[in-house]
């Protein structure tokens, strides 16, 4: 018997760790992984609520998130490959062409 709170807390911790990954790492691939981690954190929360509310909708949602995540990763990795080809680096700090 685990309170939902705990799951949510876990989800939050994972999410924050993911966010930290996005913020502190320079490697585009790791940033990407952190994003995946954040998605996962959200998924945890959703499944927990689903279970608590005894409703499958949350799980369906998770399913869709996974689909989107898969698509995102496919495109994202393709982008990273493309960037690497032109910049020869995947250090996001070296990619600042949008500087104002």
């Amino acid at each position, binding site marked *: *018997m*685990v*309170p*939902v*709170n*705990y*799951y*949510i*807390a*876990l989800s*939050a*911790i*994972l999410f*924050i*760790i993911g*966010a*930290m*990954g996005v913020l*502190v790492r*320079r*490697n585009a*691939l*790791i940033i990407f*992984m952190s994003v*995946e*981690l954040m998605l*996962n954190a959200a*998924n*945890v929360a959703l*499944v*927990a609520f*689903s*279970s*608590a509310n*005894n409703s*499958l*909708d949350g*799980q*369906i949602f998770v*399913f*869709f998130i*996974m*689909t*989107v*995540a*898969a*698509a995102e*990763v*496919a*495109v994202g*990795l*393709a*982008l*990273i*490959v*493309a960037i690497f080809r032109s910049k020869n680096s*995947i*250090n996001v*700090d*070296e990619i600042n062409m949008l500087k104002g």
Partner: protein
Amino acid sequence: MTVDLILFLILAAVAIATALGMLLSRNAVYSALFLVLNFATVAVFYLLLGAPFIALTQVTVYAGAIMVLFLFVIMLLGTEELPKGEGLNWQKPMAVILAVVLMVEATFLIFVQEPVADLISNSPSADFGGPRAIGELLFSRYLLPFEVTSILLLVAMVGAIVLTLNKKEGGQK
């Protein structure tokens, strides 16, 4: 303290630990492997939460397909480790501070302001979260979004191919 709770705490500790491992590893390959471990842990959570279908999907799609893709790209580009650079010096402390603040806020939200006292029963109905139930729901109520995801995947696939096409070599279309 029940068995469930103990199990939860252990798994949670593992999940956090792997997540931190992903975060802190210098080598991207290690990070990826830590993440796989994390995803697997989370899949276990799903099982505990009565979502067997999602749990397995998690293992196959995330821990399997996606992370393999990651590893593949890491290997392909040969960027396991970035050279040390100056980077944004103020970024890190700011990020930590914000993370802490966010953590505090989350804690306050979860445990003080809106504590959800519900307990998650460990014995859900037999078919809850099973492939059949999910399937029925997907093909009835969520049919349209489901179909849309197919298009999304198609677009993503095409996008990935177009982006990675090597134009310099006048590659074939």
